[in-house]
């Protein structure tokens, strides 16, 4: 059986944490409490303009709408599956809005909010889940890679990309339009993957300009965080030789501030950072999952009180930064987005069957060409036979 961690190993390392201690522990960086109270942090603090705060609110509302619409579209049979981000809006918008245009992002399949921040049409995010493609945006147009489904694999891609950035000299020049950071998204489950750990090692070894952004949503399908780690995830970074920070992932201000600092470290040539955005997966792993089989509703209820959007709304209203018409406009915009997504999704055309043969290679082989032509001839042989 598991022995308790050796207490002589250091008091910080035996901190008890996890879903049962849902405040995230003493090291949690927070700038806006669940009650909507603005608090300050000695290291990670920023002044936010009213415009920025309203922008965060709008981003999170629209992101949640993308998610709820997509979930509904799955229930209506229009999507085969959907990976919900409900509850993780602040983590994704805080990170996504801290990026500069030249930065490059490597997402998992749940980064719909980050995709939105990068300008990817939300409708394009649905194609993969509808089964009409494997991702249909041009990564180089948005500096946003396609969703990677193999858990953790993209962390190595991000690190390699960052090594390329170093070789291009786009680190540490002091030019804010040139210096480039790379973000690797992953989750608490992925932190157990070899590829993630190898990415940490490569990034540390080469001092690569990459930010490892872990959304610890406490659950890897049915497995709680305790199955993945015995220490807080952000502390793992120390073992690899770079800093780690745990931020309240339901606090968009703190996530923005911490991510921005980590990105700047990377751009300045100071190497990788691990950001653990401490959050909670309010929905199921995907629409095929049933969380009632493995977790208590009490847990979910306690996290509802930490909702990332509600706390910003409270803050905005309490400080007179928004009025009812602003909120109504956002709600109307969300409704419009929902309508566009519903109609757009249903209109997404199935690919032609012959499309399966396209782009297997940059230079198609004679073998594949023959198969493609055989497929076309086979289908053509049925024409007029109905």
């Amino acid at each position, binding site marked *: 059986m598991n022995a308790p961690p050796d207490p002589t190993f250091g008091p910080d390392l035996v901190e008890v944490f996890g879903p049962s201690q849902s405040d995230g522990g003493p090291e949690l960086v927070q700038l806006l409490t669940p009650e909507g109270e603005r608090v300050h942090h000695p290291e990670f603090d920023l002044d936010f303009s009213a415009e920025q705060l309203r922008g965060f609110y709008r981003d999170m509302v629209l992101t949640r709408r993308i998610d709820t619409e997509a979930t509904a579209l799955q229930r209506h049979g229009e999507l085969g599956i959907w990976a919900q981000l409900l509850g993780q809006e602040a983590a994704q918008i805080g990170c996504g809005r801290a990026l500069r245009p030249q930065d490059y992002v490597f997402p998992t399949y749940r980064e719909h909010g980050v995709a939105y921040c990068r300008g990817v049409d939300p409708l394009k995010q649905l194609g993969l889940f509808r089964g009409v493609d494997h991702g249909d945006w041009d990564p180089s147009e948005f500096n946003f890679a396609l969703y990677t489904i193999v858990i953790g694999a993209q962390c190595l891609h991000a690190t390699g990309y960052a090594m390329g950035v170093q*070789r291009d000299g786009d680190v540490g020049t002091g030019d804010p339009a040139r210096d480039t950071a790379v973000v690797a998204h992953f989750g608490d489950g992925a932190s157990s993957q070899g590829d993630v750990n190898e990415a940490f090692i490569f990034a540390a070894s080469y001092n690569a300009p990459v930010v490892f952004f872990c959304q610890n949503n406490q659950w890897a399908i049915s497995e709680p965080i305790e199955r993945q780690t015995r220490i807080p995830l952000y502390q793992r970074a120390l073992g690899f030789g770079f800093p780690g920070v745990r931020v309240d992932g339901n606090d968009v201000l703190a996530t923005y501030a911490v991510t921005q600092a980590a990105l700047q470290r990377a751009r300045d040539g100071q190497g990788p950072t691990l950001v653990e955005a401490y959050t909670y997966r309010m929905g199921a792993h995907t629409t095929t999952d049933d969380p009632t089989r493995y977790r208590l509703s009490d847990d979910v209820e306690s996290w509802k009180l930490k909702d990332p959007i509600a706390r910003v709304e409270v803050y905005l209203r309490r400080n007179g930064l928004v009025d009812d018409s602003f909120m109504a406009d956002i709600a109307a915009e969300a409704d419009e987005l929902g309508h566009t997504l519903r109609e757009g999704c249903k209109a997404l055309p199935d690919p032609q069957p012959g499309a399966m043969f396209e782009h297997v290679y940059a230079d198609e082989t004679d073998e594949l060409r023959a198969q493609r032509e055989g497929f076309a001839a086979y289908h053509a042989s049925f024409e007029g036979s109905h």
Partner: protein
Amino acid sequence: MAGTTQKITLAKGLNMGLRKAMEDDPKVLLMGEDVGKLGGVFRITDGLQKDFGEDRVIDSPLAESGIVGTAVGMAMRGYRPVVEIQFDGFVYPAYDQIVCQVAKIHYRSKGRVPMPIVIRIPFGGGIGAVEHHSESPEAQFAHTPGLKVVACSNPVDGYWMIQQAIACDDPVIFLEPKRQYHADKAELDDTETPEPLFTSRVVRQGADATLLAYGPTVKTAMKAAEAASTEGRSLEVIDLRTLSPLDMGPVLESVRRTGRAIVVHEAHVNLGLGAELSARITEECFYSLEAPVLRVGGYDTPYPASRIEEDFLPDLDRVLDAVDRSLEF
């Protein structure tokens, strides 16, 4: 440099080819374990870090998935990474990155993201090594759409094929017969125009049966053909060179003439390249065949302890035995 002719080993040919590719294209990077100062455990990258610097000849941490996975990211940034897997049996930690990412990213992205990566793998046995150092994993990659798989067999091909693989816009698994690295020398004339990469080549003409080989077994097949000729048998030998795609043109032309084909590879016979070649020859040359296509390969055991590896590997006698069986059919 132009116009020089010199006698080189396979190791030298590969080294010269890598150097030429790096000179021709500043986006070409080499990465792998011990490829820098040491020049690789087989010295294939000898001297390259000294001349091209640590940013272009990169000693990597000891993690194969990391090597291939970061190469994917470098390719996305516009580089052309050439990675070395130190030994065939160590490619498996990178198998997921190769099969799920390297092979599929161009397809997944509808051609928007090219993956011009070369994965060099010293392969095959016969060097008296411990476990995992003598394997022939080519079928596992040839079975994967999106990858191209080639195997060089001689110094001159080593020089040209590695450059062609690096210039290829598709990912290439580049298999090097490690037993041949420092074995034989051949004359390289670097002013010649090489044959295209994805082509097979008749390396010995004959009339009675066709031997199909690649990588380390080309030499075995040539020796067998030589021995057979003393008994009045004329064997044609084809160096396949490309394993995916297969270049069936020369193979089918040959088998239609000889009516007999024997595939020789070190890999396990079960579901090896020989199985695919046999199926295709049967489909295309059914009425020309005088005998079933035969296969001579490694047995369907794990690679054995090295003291008995010569009994596992196809050798001249096993090839000639198969020739006898084919001719007597």
